[in-house]
């Protein structure tokens, strides 16, 4: 294994240039170093002007998503040695506008996320002095997989539908909506149905399936979307057939 590896890092300095360029750096490549370690080495030792987001370094915070050799990756979970002898090309996440270097604007995702109300919605609240909202392990298993999402947005970067139609609400937002729809304590499914059954909601998805492949937490957003299509279709038929609608 080589002891050093070349990083080709995308740079975009809006005050200087109107297009992205690449700067090349040589960094150490011990077997335990991930791409993020390489970028931090550049920032600390070689070029302090390089900008990128990171926080936890352990695949929890979802901040360090970037495009590594063309694939959306969490750079804290992607080992440099996998790309030996290099070079390793590091670019910002695709399908988002770039603010600077490797930093993208995530405002679009944040606005969409809020629309699906990713929290427990109750029609009636129990007082804290009453019984807790109990849940069996089987009931928790219904949504647990979808609750693993860390909002890293790799799924948006991999989704060609989102690239072509930025109005598409996107994989993570739908998976998180399902996380709460399938929670036995939640009563917000009818409100989420209105958002998710819009044209830019679940029906925008044509099941490319790349969102599931790139997800570092095995959330399976593509599966969540397809399952919700069935739910939405059944609810739509119910509202048509039943005199008082589906609710």
């Amino acid at each position, binding site marked *: 294994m080589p002891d050093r590896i070349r990083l080709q890092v995308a740079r975009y300095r809006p005050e200087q240039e109107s297009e992205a360029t690449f700067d090349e750096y040589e960094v150490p490549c011990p077997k335990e170093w991930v791409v993020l370690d390489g970028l931090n080495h550049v920032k600390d030792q070689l070029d302090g002007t390089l900008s990128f987001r990171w926080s936890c370094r352990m695949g929890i915070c979802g901040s360090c998503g970037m495009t590594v050799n063309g694939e959306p990756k969490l750079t804290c979970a992607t080992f440099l040695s996998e790309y030996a002898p290099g070079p390793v090309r590091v670019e910002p996440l695709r399908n988002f506008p770039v603010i600077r270097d490797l930093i993208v604007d995530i405002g679009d995702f944040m606005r969409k996320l809020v629309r699906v109300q990713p929290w427990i919605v109750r029609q009636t609240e129990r007082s804290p002095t009453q019984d807790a909202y109990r849940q069996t392990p089987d009931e928790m298993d219904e949504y647990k997989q979808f609750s693993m999402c860390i909002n890293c947005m790799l799924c948006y970067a991999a989704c*060609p539908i989102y690239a072509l139609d930025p109005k598409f609400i996107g994989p993570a937002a739908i998976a998180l909506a399902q996380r709460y729809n399938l929670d036995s304590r939640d009563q917000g499914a009818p409100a989420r149905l209105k958002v998710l059954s819009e044209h830019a909601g679940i029906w925008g998805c044509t*099941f490319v399936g790349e969102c599931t492949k790139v997800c570092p937490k095995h959330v399976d957003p593509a*599966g969540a979307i397809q399952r919700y299509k069935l739910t939405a279709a059944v609810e739509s038929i119910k509202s048509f057939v039943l005199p008082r609608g589906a609710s």
Partner: protein
Amino acid sequence: MKAHSEYHQRWLRRPVSTYWWLEKPAYFAFILRESSCMFVGWFVIYLLLLVRAVLDGEVSYRQYLEWSATPGILFLNIVTLAFVLYHAVTFFQAAPQALVVRAGRKRVPPRLVLAGHYVAWIVASGLIGWVLLAGRA
């Protein structure tokens, strides 16, 4: 949407290439799967033409058979068969992701859902084969 600072006015937006579907093998496989629908449609039309030819009588049916044996139609049908098989296989692969089947309180493993699709395919093909062969006998 208002920008947060003067530099945000200069976000770098990267346009999507017309040939985005050639960038990754998975995207290309997806486009092939989507376009296979056209070939499924052709098989439906081809079957309807057969039904019409049978209803119109023996002469019409023989003309349909002769037309089907021409190189152009034969080639089209071979390509169509390949696409329809690809359509079926990719559809089956996707099915366990979209379909949650339960046996009591337990979820049926996705592999069994996939196997169920193939068993149903084999049984249906066997049934059609049996009807055709029984008709000849």
